[in-house]
């Protein structure tokens, strides 16, 4: 119970501040939880691990939850994961039931968040125990599996895989590290780049560039439209909120929460997949499916319970395998590394206090998010009206701070920020997807070490199939994941052709 000593007032204040800032980020269309975590990262440089985590987890939970505000009030999803919230939330606002819709969403968010935190608490240590026995062969296969899953759930299978491999390629730039058994030579660069790129690109400037700067460039291209200026908030004209809405929705809540948690566990899969899947399931099981989409609380519940389920779910592979479940947890990896903590199968066992503190922080973050939003929703609803011409310059400035300070003052990291900002903006134009790219970038270095070392010790490719029952099981998973993606691609293609013929 030593971890209790870490829980001082500052700890709880940081969770509160984090969830509040997160909610604001989530509530502003175009800003995401990932961006909130990336932009606020420099604040944690001065904190110790526990306090840093308190702030970051608050930001994470708040950022995912805040997205429901503009989704319900403006019909604009604040984060990709609240797309399906607009389907029923906005019609409710149009009927004058805005406040009711918001509160239904907030309660569902709390439920999803707590459910996934519970799954995390019980499941991550078990998974880590299994993962401890993994050798390089299994570790490589897990990364391979992660990459196929990302690809199979991205919009376009081939482009998803391509983006992931580009990420791996970017990760290989630099020295083949001696401390992992490499030979210390540099590759994939010209000699004049060596002073800058000997260590490769730093993770955080890359992430901040891709998620912060690229977003701003994208908005700049669209002309920085102030789409909220003439909004009138009519929150409370129709039916009032009461908890009786949830009486018949217990199964919906549970199902959606579990779907969110499960999707969150799959590496690199964004929140929109979770909410879309649980919304379709809610529709399939609903007693009156035709009403969904016309302003039914049922739809808001399904969407919001699942997207907050992501939070705990995405932390499971991060803390037990060292593989981030989504782009926000990818940034969290950076924060851990910064504090000198290696996440992976050994993390929970060796850092039991940190693990307990994290669970307390996650739980508190969910509760604080709920209290803040439930009672102050009318005021929070106004933050969607903060003008972008004020906000975006501040974000650019914070991106610079985050990139520069990460390695204690390397100007090249700031240029990395711009390079990946512009690169990310252009890449999105030609259909390259950022999420698989980031996961590939994070896992690429390890993938190389595991792959090359396995071959160096066993000398044959067959080892990847025959090493252990776990390896074979992982191959089954890989085949299922690839098979599923080919199946859905073929199905979508047939439907499209049928549609084309029908014209």
């Amino acid at each position, binding site marked *: 119970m030593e971890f209790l000593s870490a829980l001082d007032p500052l700890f709880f204040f940081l969770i509160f501040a984090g969830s509040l800032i997160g909610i604001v980020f989530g509530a502003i269309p175009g800003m995401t939880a990932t961006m909130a975590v990336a932009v606020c990262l*420099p*604040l944690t*440089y*001065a904190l110790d691990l526990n306090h840093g985590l308190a702030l970051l987890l608050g930001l994470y939970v708040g950022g995912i939850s805040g997205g429901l505000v503009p989704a319900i009030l403006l019909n604009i999803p604040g984060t990709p994961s609240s797309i399906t919230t607009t389907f029923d939330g906005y019609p409710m606002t149009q009927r004058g039931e805005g406040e009711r819709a918001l509160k239904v969403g907030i309660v569902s968010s709390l439920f999803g968040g707590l459910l996934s935190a519970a799954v995390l608490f019980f499941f991550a240590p078990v998974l880590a125990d299994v993962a401890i026995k993994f050798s390089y062969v299994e570790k490589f296969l897990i990364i391979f599996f992660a990459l196929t899953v990302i690809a199979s759930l991205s919009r*376009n299978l*081939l*482009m998803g*895989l*391509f983006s992931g*491999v*580009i990420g*791996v*390629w970017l990760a*290989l730039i630099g*020295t*083949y590290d001696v401390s992992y058994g*490499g*030979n*210390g030579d*540099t*590759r*994939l660069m010209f000699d004049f780049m060596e002073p800058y790129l000997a260590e490769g690109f730093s993770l955080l400037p890359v992430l901040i560039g891709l998620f912060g*700067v690229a977003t*701003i*460039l994208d908005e*700049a*291209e*669209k*002309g*920085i439209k*102030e789409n909220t200026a003439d909004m009138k908030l009519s929150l409370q004209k129709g039916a009032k909120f009461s908890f009786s809405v949830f009486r018949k929705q217990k199964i919906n809540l549970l199902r959606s929460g579990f779907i969110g948690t499960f999707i969150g566990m799959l590496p690199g899969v964004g929140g929109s997949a979770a909410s879309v899947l649980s919304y379709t399931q809610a529709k399939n099981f609903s007693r009156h499916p035709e009403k969904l989409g016309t302003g039914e609380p049922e739809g808001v519940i399904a969407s919001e319970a699942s997207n907050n389920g992501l939070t705990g779910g995405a932390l499971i592979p991060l803390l037990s395998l060292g593989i981030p479940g989504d782009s926000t947890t990818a940034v969290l990896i950076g924060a851990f590394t910064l504090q000198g903590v290696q996440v992976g199968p050994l993390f929970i066992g060796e850092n039991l206090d940190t693990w307990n503190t994290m669970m307390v922080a996650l739980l508190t973050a969910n509760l604080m998010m709920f209290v803040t939003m439930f009672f102050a929703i009318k005021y929070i609803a106004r933050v969607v009206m903060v*003008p*972008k*011409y*004020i906000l*975006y*310059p*501040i974000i*650019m*400035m*914070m991106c*610079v*701070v985050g990139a*520069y*300070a990460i390695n204690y*003052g390397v*100007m090249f990291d*700031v*240029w990395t920020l*711009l390079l990946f900002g*512009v690169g990310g903006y252009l890449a999105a134009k030609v259909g390259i997807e950022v999420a698989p790219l980031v996961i590939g970038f994070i896992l690429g270095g390890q*993938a190389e070490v595991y*792959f*090359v070392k396995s*071959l*160096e010790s066993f*000398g*044959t*490719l*067959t080892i990847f199939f025959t090493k252990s029952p776990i390896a074979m099981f992982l191959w089954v998973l890989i085949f299922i994941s690839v098979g599923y993606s080919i199946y859905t691609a073929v199905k979508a293609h047939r439907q499209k052709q049928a549609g084309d013929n029908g014209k």
Partner: protein
Amino acid sequence: MGNSGLLQVSIDFAQSHLFFPRIIHWLLLIMLVLIAVLQGIPYYRELRAGRKSLPFTSGPFDAPRLFGTIVLTIAYFLSMSYVGDLFPNTGLGFLFMSIPYMFALSLLYLHQRNRRHLLRVTVNAFIAPVVAWYVLAKLFNITLP
């Protein structure tokens, strides 16, 4: 393992830093060809038929704001590192250059430039960098340019 000779691999340690990148290059090349064949050709047909447009030409394209942001940011980084070298380890390069940068960027993003908006922009351009500099560089001792 007698009959798996084809799958035998031996890696020369001196060249081992190129082994995995080579595989990745082949993968990228194969996928690029696949993408060109499976998606590029249909896309090109649609393009010629006029049913689709090039990725950069559809929708609103605000060139001044986009390129303005990039140019301002490059100028910001260059000047920041220059001024930062004049006052090393103080974060003053960041402070002094953030103020004009934020002011210019806000002006660029503003749609109606009336007095009330200009006042807001000016106040923000001064307060935000000063607060950020004070909190990060002075209170938290974080390295700034």
